[in-house]
């Protein structure tokens, strides 16, 4: 799949990259980060114009993300039918209100594996769209210019850069999961202390 898409990006350029990142934004599991890094390297070679490619990609991916937000938004009624009385759901909603902006921003480029669930959760919890749009656009700008910039900087070594970044995402996810576990233990400890006092 990645090889096929790389061939098509060098053949059809920025418009095709825009279509791919749009579909990725909607939720299809496509190797978008790899293509963005490669596009940076192709821009260095003069095969893609960096400014047009960056602009098309940012607009496309933000539109795609907004569509997946709308999936969550319109699925709310179904979700509420099932979970409206669940304390866990209410807790999740409350915690998304607090952590939503950070989750949206960082899941655009740091832990891209959770970008789709975050979009759906944003819509389902009725996280304000304007705020979603703002943090989404900022995160995607970092994604495109950061990763595309790395591809540009490292040129022909872009494959190694991609390997590094995809593993870094996994490492970050591991740290987040571990931190959630530790936080939960600390909460229990705090509760225990409160009860003993």
């Amino acid at each position, binding site marked *: 799949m990645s090889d*096929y898409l790389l*061939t098509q990006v*060098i053949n059809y350029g920025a418009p095709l990259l825009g279509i791919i990142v749009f579909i990725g934004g909607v939720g299809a599991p496509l190797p978008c980060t790899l293509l963005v890094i490669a596009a940076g390297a192709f821009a260095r070679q003069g095969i893609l114009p960096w400014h047009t490619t960056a602009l098309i990609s940012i607009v496309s991916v933000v539109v795609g993300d907004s569509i997946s937000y709308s999936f969550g938004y319109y699925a709310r009624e179904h979700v509420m039918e099932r979970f409206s009385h669940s304390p866990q759901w209410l807790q999740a909603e409350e915690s998304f209100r607090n952590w939503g902006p950070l989750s949206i921003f960082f899941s655009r480029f740091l832990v891209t594996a959770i970008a789709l669930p975050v979009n759906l959760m944003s819509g389902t919890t009725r996280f304000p769209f304007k705020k979603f749009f703002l943090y989404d656009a900022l995160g995607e700008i970092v994604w495109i210019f950061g990763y595309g910039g790395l591809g540009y900087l490292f*040129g022909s070594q872009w494959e190694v850069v991609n390997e590094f970044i995809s593993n*870094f995402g*996994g490492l970050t996810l*591991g740290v987040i999961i571990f931190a959630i*576990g530790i936080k939960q233990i600390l909460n*229990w400890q705090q509760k225990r202390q409160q009860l003993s006092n």
Partner: protein
Amino acid sequence: MFKHSNPKQRMLIFTLILLGCIFILFFGLRIFHISKKFNGGLPPPPRPAGEIETDVEKIREWMTIPFISRTYGVPEKILFEATGISPERNHKKSIEELNEEYFPSVDGYIIEQIKSAVRAHQPPPLTPVPSDSP
């Protein structure tokens, strides 16, 4: 410590911590291994615009012949001739597609032909001009 939690919750938390540790160890080791491939973690020095690639081992099967021609500074005509394939209707096909279409019985035939042609016809790298001063 876990007096005020139910067994299900306890199990979930231990699973999270264990999973987190596995992820950290697995991806951490991979990153350590990958970082050895970088030249001291630094990007290559910036090349002047239009400078060509020289390492033929970086040719991949997803590349097209016009792309390789541009990257390595070898005319398309030479590359198509080396593979024995007509350029017509083959410009947008990857090396892999061309190989499957024209040489299905020989794996990697076209990529090897292209590597040899690039080695043979690549323009010499730019050498620094010696200064006149003693």
